[in-house]
């Protein structure tokens, strides 16, 4: 008799093993080292030594509170805008797409076959101060005559929104697509208005998609540094830029590690807080019931 036949209870563990090992090696171990580094003292020139140096955390928080708050504001704004753009789009594709569904979804994804960096750099060219887009915006009065689009807060938020939009649209689409149309029909049969059917049936049923999309957009957006670097100015610097500069320019590994931890912790707190508000049900998907 094989081991599994003797002890069938082992099967789930065996199936979990690859994933668990992955998490241990690529999440827990780095996390441990990062935590260690964040408590070290020294400089790259004298070497770093472990010293339970919690001051790094307090210093990092007090020095970079502006960038931390800014990162969450930008990420929040980008997530909200992505939702406002993404929901109607996903809705139309899911409910009215018909045989074009696949093609329309492909259109959402196709721009993202091009690398992140090149797409962001293209925005630099498109939005250039003396480019056609800005000229038109000036002509219609949306931008003042001496104004600009590039190197502004708006450009950074727009860039983040653009770059993470598919992460919002795809989960929304997946949850909308699964909705049983008979439920909507039942709603109408019970004299529900279009609005009532949407707010009381469609929207609640699509909540898992909303939550997943929001998390998939918000989390990477909060740590992003490319958009602020290429589309912003020092006044738009985000926490990702600070971590990058601390790590690569100043070789101040402890502060970079501490800031990464702070970012991670804050994101975790926000996700948990949201789970509390939206209910674990929404977070885990409606099947969790």
């Amino acid at each position, binding site marked *: 008799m094989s081991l599994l036949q003797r002890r069938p209870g082992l099967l789930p563990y065996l199936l979990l093993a690859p994933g668990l090992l992955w998490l241990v090696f690529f999440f827990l171990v780095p996390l441990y080292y990062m935590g260690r580094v964040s408590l070290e003292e020294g400089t790259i020139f004298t070497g*770093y030594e472990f010293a339970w140096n919690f001051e790094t955390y307090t210093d990092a928080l007090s020095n970079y509170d502006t960038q931390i708050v800014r990162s969450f504001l930008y990420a929040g704004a980008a997530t909200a805008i992505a939702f406002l753009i993404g929901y109607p789009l996903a809705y139309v594709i899911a409910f009215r797409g018909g045989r074009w569904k696949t093609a329309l979804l492909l259109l959402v994804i196709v721009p993202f076959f091009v690398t992140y960096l*090149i797409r962001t750099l293209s925005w630099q060219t498109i939005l250039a101060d*003396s480019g056609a887009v800005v000229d038109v915006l000036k002509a219609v009065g949306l931008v003042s005559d001496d104004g600009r689009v590039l190197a502004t807060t708006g450009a950074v938020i727009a860039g983040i929104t653009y770059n993470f939009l598919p992460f919002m649209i795809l989960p929304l689409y997946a949850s909308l697509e699964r909705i049983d149309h008979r439920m909507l029909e039942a709603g109408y049969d019970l004299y529900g208005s279009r609005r009532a059917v949407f707010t009381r049936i469609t929207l609640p049923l699509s909540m898992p998609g909303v939550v997943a999309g929001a998390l998939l957009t918000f989390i990477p957006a909060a740590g992003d540094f490319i958009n602020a670097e290429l589309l912003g100015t*020092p006044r738009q610097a985000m926490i990702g*830029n600070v971590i*990058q500069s601390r*790590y690569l320019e100043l070789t101040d*590994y402890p502060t970079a590690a501490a800031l*990464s931890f702070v970012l991670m912790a804050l994101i975790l707190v926000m996700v948990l807080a949201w789970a509390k508000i939206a209910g674990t049900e929404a977070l885990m998907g409606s099947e969790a019931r």
Partner: protein
Amino acid sequence: MSDRNDLDIERALDAMMAAGMNRRTLMRHAGAGALSLGVIGFLAACGGDDGGNGAAKVIAKGEVSDTLNFSNWPLYIDVEGKKRPTLDKFRREYGTRVKYTEEINDNVEFFGKVRQQYDRGDSGGRDIHVVTDWLCNRMNQLGFVQKFDKSEMPNVVKNIEDAVASPDFDPKREISVPWQSGQVFLIYRKDKVGGDLTSVNDLFDPKFKGKVTMLSEMRDTVGSVLLGNGVEPEKATKDQALEAIEKIQKASADGQIRRFTGNEYTRGLLSGDAVAALGWSGDAVQLQIDSDDVAYRHPDEGFMIFTDSVQVPVGAPHAFTAQKMVDFVYRPEIQVPITAYIQYVPPVKGIRPLLERSNPELAESDLIFPDLSKSHSLKTFSDEEEQEIEAAFQAAIGT
């Protein structure tokens, strides 16, 4: 070459398209992107113990070896087809085959890479490395490098340019010998600024609000602003440096300065998003080819120069030959083809008359032959001061 290659995304793109990503861009982008996943932990946890701080030992006399391992920056020696003529000449004369590795793309990154090896007295097989002067100083303080035996280097003694011969950290050039120097300029759009810029202070003119970029390399930007303030960067105090940084910070917060960049300021100038910038001489040639409207100029108050120097690390297997190699390139006739190819400021005297014969146009170029009496470099501050200044500068540029 300092951090001119900083977050040079445009160049990264060019390189990516032309020949695949190079090592540094990979590290910068992939690496930085993955930071929050703990790459920091892995890399930094590898740090070793403190290095010694003893005085460097003089390179012993010996025999010229068959091979020599030379680590340098990319595009920093003459190339002809697949050959490097300077190295071939060295081989013909000394019988030494030089293994030349273009492995240095960034000072700090290179330091991080070799620190542990050098700390153990292991040069990793390297006989020569080339890093910017401030790092040369650090390498020496940590006891990572050997002292040159100047009695074996008659060409260096005789031909070294006065402007680079005695920096404060190495007044006799015993632990570092200059390889090449580069300059920091005002680079601007003639058509958009209406005339010429003459001073670094022009970059603070409200007329150019939001249209100015400066370099993310602290020593270049702070040094230039110090000159604009009438302070000699060689003699600057910490407070004067911090004062200059405050001026930069204010301009950055006001929106006067649009961005702090590595090489990518060239893109902004060409598109017109920036009309005036602090830039590097190495880019000026290409910019002028790209656009007739771009002009460069040395600020009237003087300009910053940065020097990358040769060092022989402790444990170098062929230190004596390395010394010969350095002395070899200080022969003017050997240096000329290097200068003609890479167009940096040569540290060797007597290049100009030779170039006048072989390449008269280049002999007139102020990219190669600036008025060195007006060149400056930032003082070497103590470790603590340096850290404070660097941190203040990073804060001024938003991070």
